[in-house]
Structure formats: C-alpha cells, structure tokens
C-alpha cells in the first residue's frame, strides 16, 4: 500500500502521519507537496491536520483550491482511498468530497483532549479491522470540529451508513448527532476530527488509532 501525505503550507500533522505509516506500519510513504498534480503512484492519500494556508478564513476554504486538490478529486473518483484527519476533514468537506460543514466548536474554544469514539460502521476500508460498537480512545485538537448538515443530508448519511464514528459520551464540540467521522457513499473517502495518528503507540497512552491504519493496510 503506497501512501502519500499531502503537505499544504501550514499543515502540522503531516509529520505525525508520515511517522506512523513509515515507522509503525512499515509502509512506503512520501510527502506530497501541495502543488503536485500527479498522484498516480499512491493507493491512499492522507490529508493531515494543521492550519492549511493559515486558515485565517474558514478552515480548509483556501486549501480546496490548491493544485493538489484537483488530483485528489480524480484519485477519489477512481475509487482510491483518501483519509482526511482534522484539517484534512475540513478540507474534504470544503472540496465537497464529503457532505456537510464543520463549524466552530459550541464552546467557542479550541479543545485538545483524549475522547472516546465509537465505530458505527465496520464495513469500510478504514474500519474493517474494527468491530461495530467498538469504543476507541484518541485525542482531538481543533477549534472548528462541530459537524453540521441539513436534515435531508443527515437522513442520507444514516440511510447509507456513512456515519463511521460517533463520540461516545463526551461530545467535545457539539457535533450534530455526535458525529466524529463520516465517509462518502462509495466508502473510499473518510473524514474524521479525532487523530488516529496520535494514538498508534503505547508510549503515547493509546494504540486504538492503529485499527484505522491497519484497516487501510490490511484491507
């Protein structure tokens, strides 16, 4: 499985994703600069967390216009995998690869802590090593992670089993229906606010995030 970690100016979890893929999963991985347009060698693209282009506007609103994003769209359209984490999720939503929007946290403040999330669909390329109902512990760290969409979209997400993760108990940002992560209808694009790359080694207090990465690799 060839991974590409997209680097926008202002990305800051690119190194963390790269580290996990390379040193924990022992998979081939490259950094992909935001101006790159040929992504044909990659099986899975990671849009990492951070503050792409500073995110002084709505998070991800500028990154969606980045040259690499056209290539990401094509990559996704070919059925290859895309995982957007935190800022990456925000960018996927802005790019309309995923429905809905990510609003400012209801508490109006940035929140960083370990949360518990529940796997709601284990039939995706990102969760097949998990089981439905399994609860995972991993950190969130964001200011705009409150998922929102209209009623029709929510109904569609539910009907198509696109809600992949929900917060279990403590909902740190006020997300609609406790949504922590969703995928597209085709299941090959996942966006999630919690950070599985920050919970993949025992020394960091949780290895629950590894399930997501191992699903991608071993799928």
């Amino acid at each position, binding site marked *: 499985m060839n991974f590409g970690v997209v680097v926008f100016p202002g990305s*800051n979890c690119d190194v963390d994703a790269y580290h996990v893929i390379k040193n924990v999963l022992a998979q081939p991985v490259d950094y992909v600069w935001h101006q790159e347009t040929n992504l044909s060698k990659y099986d899975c693209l990671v849009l990492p967390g951070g503050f792409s282009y500073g*995110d002084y506007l709505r998070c991800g609103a500028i990154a969606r216009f980045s040259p690499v994003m056209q290539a990401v769209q094509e990559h996704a359209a070919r059925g290859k995998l895309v995982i957007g984490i935190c800022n990456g999720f925000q960018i996927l939503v802005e790019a309309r690869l995923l429905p809905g929007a990510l609003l400012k946290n209801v508490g109006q403040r940035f929140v960083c802590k370990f949360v518990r999330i529940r796997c709601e669909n284990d039939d995706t390329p990102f969760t097949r090593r998990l089981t439905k109902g399994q609860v995972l512990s991993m950190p969130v*760290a964001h200011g705009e992670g409150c998922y929102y969409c209209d009623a029709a979209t929510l109904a569609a997400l539910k009907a198509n089993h696109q809600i992949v993760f929900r917060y279990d108990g403590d909902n740190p940002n006020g997300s609609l229906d406790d949504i922590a992560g969703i995928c597209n209808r085709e299941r090959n694009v996942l966006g999630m606010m919690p950070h599985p790359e920050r919970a993949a080694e025992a020394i960091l207090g949780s290895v629950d995030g590894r399930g997501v990465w191992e699903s991608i690799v071993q799928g």
Partner: protein
Amino acid sequence: MLEKALALGMKEEEYHRVVEILGRVPTETELAMYSVEWSEHCGYPRSRALLRLLPRTGKFKTLIGQDAGGIEIAPGLAIVFKMESHNHPSQVEPKQGAATGIGGIVRDIFGSGARPIALLDSLRFGDLRTPLARYLFNGVVDGIQSYGNSIGVPTVGGEVYFNECYRGNCLVGVMCVGVARAEDLISARARGVGNSVIYFGNSTGRDGIGGASILASHELGEDEEKRPTVQIGDPFTEKCLIEATLEMLRTGAVVSLKDMGAAGLTCSTCEQAAAGEVGMEIDLDQVPLREADMEPWEIMMSESQERMLAVVEKGREEEVLSICRRWDLGAAVIGQVTGDGMMRVRHRGKVVAEMPAKSLAEAPLYHLPAEEPAYIKQVRSFDPSQLPEPSDYNDVLLKLLASPNIASKEWVFHQYDHTVQTNTVVAPGKGDAAVLRLKFSDQFSVASNQSRLTPHASRLGIAAVTDCNARYCYLDPCLGAQIAVAEAARNLVCVGAEPAAVTDCLCFGNPEKPERFWQFKRAVEGIATACEFFDLPVVSGNVSFYNETPASVIHPSPLIGMIGVLSDVTQHLTLGFKREGDIIALVGETGDDLGGTEYLHVIHGLEVGAPPSLDFERERAVQRTVLEAAQKGLLSSAHDCSEGGLAVALAECCIEGGIGAAVELRKRQDTSRNDALLFGESQSRIIVSLPEQRVNDLLNIAQQHGAPVTMLGKVGGQRLRVNDLIDVDVSALDRAWRGAIPCLMNA
C-alpha cells in the same frame, strides 16, 4: 538631538557617550539604533554584571549561543531551550502580546538550528475575581492557543498563579524547547567578508516601533495608550519560516542566523556583526516594506514579526532564496559582511548610519545601588501562634482546592494542542512535569522527500517544567529563588527525570529603585547558589524589569524553566494513585512551616512569615531517592508537596487517580499545629505510592542517600481520610478542584 534621545528612552549620559563614540552628533537613525540596543531589553546594562554569577557548566555538556542555549543530552544530540517574557505587551494587548511572545521565543529556537518540539508558559495575573484579571487571563490564553496551535508546536506544560501584585503587570513567560543534532546547530556570528546578508520572512512595517526601548524598558502608566507598540502575530508565516529555515540550514550555505526580535533589523545586523568581529553594510532600499515612505530609523527599529536575517556564503544565495520562494516567503539580499568592523546603513544612496558594530552591541554597564526594603523585617516578624486554628478541616481543604492557584488548570491546557508531534508521554496535569519522547532530531525535507531520522531504537526522553513561588520570593528573594530551583528539579524527579539544565526569566520591578534592585540581586544570588549546588547550568535566560505601575509592583518573580533527562522514557511516573492497596509514603519530613503558605493567604488573607527553609543536602537526598526508585521501577506514583502542603498533594493524587486514600500523619512535636501539619509547605517532600512488597527496596535506597521516609497509609476506597481531621469523598474534592476556574471564568 538630545531631546530626541530622551524621547527614545535614553539617558542624558548615554547620549553624550554616543557623541563621544562617533566624534559627532548622531543621525536620527544612529540614535534610534543606540536607543534600542542599549535598552535593558536588548543590552542588559543593569543586570549583566550580576548575571555573571550564574553557573554555566554541569553534568551535561552545555551549548551556549547568542539567543538560546542548550545541552548535549547524548553524544551529538542537543536540546536547545530558552524562556523569555512578553509582559508589557501582554498587559497592553493580551492576545497579540502573548501570541507574539510565542513567535519570538520559537524563532530563537529554530534560529539556532533546532526543531521546536515543546512550549511551556509561566503566567501570572491579578486576582481572578476582578474583571481586568479575567480579561487578561482569557486574552493571554487565547493568544497562546491561537499562535502555538497553529504552528504545530505542542504546549505541554507551565503554571499559572494569581496575585493582586500582578494587577498592573501580568507576566507571560514563554519557554520553547527544541531538538537538533549538535552538528546542525548554527551560531549568530557573522563570518566571511563579502558574504551576503539575506532578509527573509514578513515585510517590515511601522508596527512595534520602540517595543524594546520604550514599552519594555520603562514602567507602564495605568492608563497610557501603548497599544500601537504591540505587534500582530502571523503564525502561518511563522510555521513556513520554521520549515524554510531548517531546510535552508541543511544546504550548508548559511553561515550565521538570527531572528529579528526586539529591535528588529538593528539587533539582528549589528549583533551578528559584533559577535563575529566583522562589519556589515546594508541597503534599506532592498528591505521588503509594507509602506513605501518609511523613514530609515523606522525601518531599523520596526519590530514587525516573523522576520529572520541570515548571512549566506557568497555565490550560494540562490539556494536560500529558492527555498523561500517555495514557501512563499519574501526574501532579499540586503547587504554584505565587511572587514572594517563598522555597521553601515544606506538609504536612497546615502549613508544614514555608520558606527562600530561593537559599540552598539556592548551596552553601558551600570552598577545600581541595592537596599533591603523595609517591608522585609515587618512581614517576617509574623508569629503564626496567634492565629486561630480552623474548626472544620474538610472545609479548609475544599477551599484550598478551589483556590485558583491550586485548582485544576484544565480550562487552560485543554485549549492548547498538547499532543501534536506525537511525543507527549506525560501530558499537562498528569504529572509534576511534562515528559516527551525523542523521536528524531529533524523531520523532513519536501525538496528531497526524505526523512532524516536518528536511530529510532533510543528510549531517551526529556522532561520540562517551569516553576516559581513568587510569594516566597517576596518574603525572601534569595530563599524564594533557591526554592524555585529546588522545586523545579523536584518536579522533574517526580516524573522520573534527572534534572539537567536551567533557563531563567527574571521578572522584577524598576531596578533604578534600590529596594527593587536588592530583590533582583538577592534572587540572582539565590539561583546561582542553588544551581551551583545541584550542578545545574543556566544555559539561557532573559530579564524583564519595570514590571510596576504607580499603583502596584510585582513580587520578585524569577521564573525558572528546567529540563530533565530520562534515559528510559518508559520508566516515567505520573502523580495519580494507581492501585488499591498501594502503600503511600512520604520521602522527606514535615516541619511547622506556615510562613508564606497558600493556606495563610486563602484562609487568613495574609502574605507574611518566613518562607519554609531549604536544606540543600536534604533536598538532594530526597531527589536522589525518588529518582533512583523511579528508575528501578519501584514506584506507582510520585507527587511533590507544594502550595497547600500534604493535604492538597494527597487530594491531588486521589483526584488524578480517581481513588481514595486513608492516611495517618504524625506531628513533629505534640505542640505542632494541625494546620501546619496539613497545609504547611515544608520543602523537600515527595509523596510516593508503591506496592507493599517494594517498600523495603525504597527504604534501602533512602537509607543510602540519607533521606527520611515515613509510611503514611494506603490507597483505596472512594474517600480521602487524614487522621481524624479530614474525611471527604474524592468526587467532592474533584468538583471543588476542577470546577473553580471554569466557574470564575464563566461568571
């Protein structure tokens, strides 16, 4: 011109000295340059002599540079760190003041060639029940989170205290820690006649003119409008600067490097030239400007943020410029290194400043008079025996846990990204210090698309902490400063790290007042003697004077930042009790120490008495015992006794562990008071918990080091019980402790 000099904050005799150096009346630009370089903020004219007392060597090899210092914790592996204050700007405009404080200290770290891996903040505000303190606290935390989170450097620790003495001068001490291969570190010494001077980063505007000389080097008036001297931070550009700088250092084309911090272009040019014993010539027409009509003195004094100045080998400029282009950073060759030792500035074809670079970098040295303040004798004559003893100790404990100085700081650190970079092993609130693993020394280059990892097998880790009980320093600046050093080291030991090196951020009032200078002098002597004894080098630091207004003066606040080393990071400790049935032991001894306690302040409204005494030998014995026990894996938890004494420390161990404890404390003598037993702040005490079968091992270690150990009780149940004095449900302790600050901030 003399009038202009005075308006720029210079003294009359300083003006005459400039005239003497130049042999003529200075130009406006020259005057501006001297005024900033000779200000306390840049040249340390009032503090330099005393700072020479601080030890510079220790167990680990020290690496002391111009901006940030460090230690080599393993062959070839450097930890670079520094704490710096941004007090005045934060008082004037809390969010941007704090944000630009982060920006500045982070540039010091990557400007030395190290990758920034952690931030810690040592914050002080007035009484949190006042709207002004809440406004400042909220704004400063917002500034730290907005800047620190964005640049992807985790904020892993620090402390916050509230005291009315900080009403007119909040303190924002920011510490940044970086890691580098020692061979990759770069100096700020310009070399090589003909080499190019390259400016990169944000363009230069009219913001922050006089920040160092006027804002930071004088007392703040209560209602002065100084907001225009504070700059606006741009964390996105900073993040790009971090990556671009580390990338250009790998080309080998960069000879020396310095950030444009206080005094901007002036300090980054003349200090690099002076340090390298060369001259430098720059052309202001090449400097990227935000406004075309800026005067030369404005360009030289501007403190616009996120700017760096590199000296680059002649002929290799394009290697550096192309990296800047890729990161969309402005960059320009603005001058070159010369051999004549002169700092020469051109503007529109004319030389607007020309002086020996050394004369700028070597500020005058003042020996100020020091005099013990009258209040010292008065506050120390206090006799606690006249105080009534409380009737309800449960109530006192709950009140102390809800004191903002003791209460949980979750409200603060949940706003900081403390897990980015995936190195955080002990997160804020979990232990007495932050613990980080060290994954690699430098991370990646998109250009070559490769990661330069150091061997991954190493289990090496570091711990970091900041500390200072300023109330002790108010009552006795020397002892207070010694305690700050000892306690920071004790905190490191409590997470299983060996204390290694210090950075200090010395915040005081107006040094031109002899009582204030006495406080400064005694505190520096305290740090020096303690660091000497504990073999801790002071590798970097900063001095912030004039933290007073006509209505208030801060307690002497020598903020201490300290780094410790864990040879095996998997052997780290946290503070919460872990297991039902574990034995609770006290390493150290409890005396009758009520002076200067949080208890006296919260319950009796007093800031009096002598601070607890500190016996260096005892302190070392206690620390060595706990460190060895930690390294041998004997302990389940360790927690330092500080503000609030034994009772508060025990409560914190219970809250964090989510489990109760039953404890029997013995008085030193029958006449001892219960409040001193429970809430006294005797030094050199650590509460540990451990499985019963390991107690003998602990006792053996303690005996070898000569540390007293007493068994206090056992972990278990859902209540904290201490003698027949305290009996409270852990959930009630938790509510009081966790709820206090959110409750005040939502009021």
